[in-house]
């Protein structure tokens, strides 16, 4: 799975209507964070990364 480089910064995040969190980073990637509640009750996120827009 692609993850943003630690040298990149991430812009503001927004929640879409399906409760998925969307972030964008200065490297030009959009990341979708789908919330999943684990068996132990801890919140986790399934991530998907897409090339999008080099945001500030």
């Amino acid at each position, binding site marked *: 799975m692609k993850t943003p480089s630690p040298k990149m910064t991430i*812009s503001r995040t927004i929640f879409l*209507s399906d409760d998925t*969190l969307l972030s*964008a980073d200065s490297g030009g990637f959009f990341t*979708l964070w789908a919330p999943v509640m684990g068996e132990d009750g*801890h*919140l986790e996120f399934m991530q998907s990364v*897409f090339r999008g*827009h080099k945001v500030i």
Partner: protein
Amino acid sequence: MTHIEGTTFASGDFEGVVKLWTVESGNFEHKDSIQLPSSAGAVLLVDGARGQSEEVYILSGYDQIFRWFLPNPPSVTQVVEGFPKGFTSLMTHTMEDSFFVTTKENTVLRFHPLNGLEWRSDLMSLGMSISCHSSGKVIAVGCSTGDLNILSTMDGAHISMLPVADSDDALICLSYSASGENLAIGTASGCLYLLPVSDDGLGYHKLNLLKVCYIGRIYSHSSLSFSWNNFLGLFLFLRSNTFLPYFLVLCLTPGHLSHTQSSMVNGWQLYLNKRREQRDSRTYSL
């Protein structure tokens, strides 16, 4: 980046380009884009209108504000020309076609995109952050002196001023939850305040204070943002100056506040459940 509605959002970049996107089932589609004039500089902030129209307001690096009207035919116009420069934050009205800005002259201004300035309200200190309550009746303005100002959206009248943080701790980030029942406030020293809100934005009760000590001092108001979600609660994002982004998920449950912490970007999968509670018995009523 700003949410517009449903699965539509907009993003802006250093080159003055704003793009409109939709995302369905994980697939992104680039719908449209605009290029601001070269005199505008970079895109500092985009905010999707919450009123009657589908539009995006854009604050540029050289203190220009643009309105991108999305319905066909789309158009981009510069608004707020001829006013003193030095805008520090921008927020659209939750119910009407207007927007609010704070300025370096310690003022809050309300503009209509076509009719221009609607009112001006003076502050005792520099306004650094702004949020409009879902009722549309009030806005909250966070100031450099740690004070929270509640103003009427109708005429800018001061409803109340709450001393939330220390006088040297600026309120750099504000966000009402979608329901309007909570207000999250982030300060420059790394503190998070969560205030239950009642009476359509007129009542505030300082219930929980969460000290996010490991963040350290935050030097830029653009480094911190909140996102509210009905399922997850409050999502706090910090963009640090040392290029080590953190994020926190705050799950709001009755009577206490807990958060799930992740570490740096490359440690997304690492979640540490921690609970830090620090009660503050002070209660404010308007």
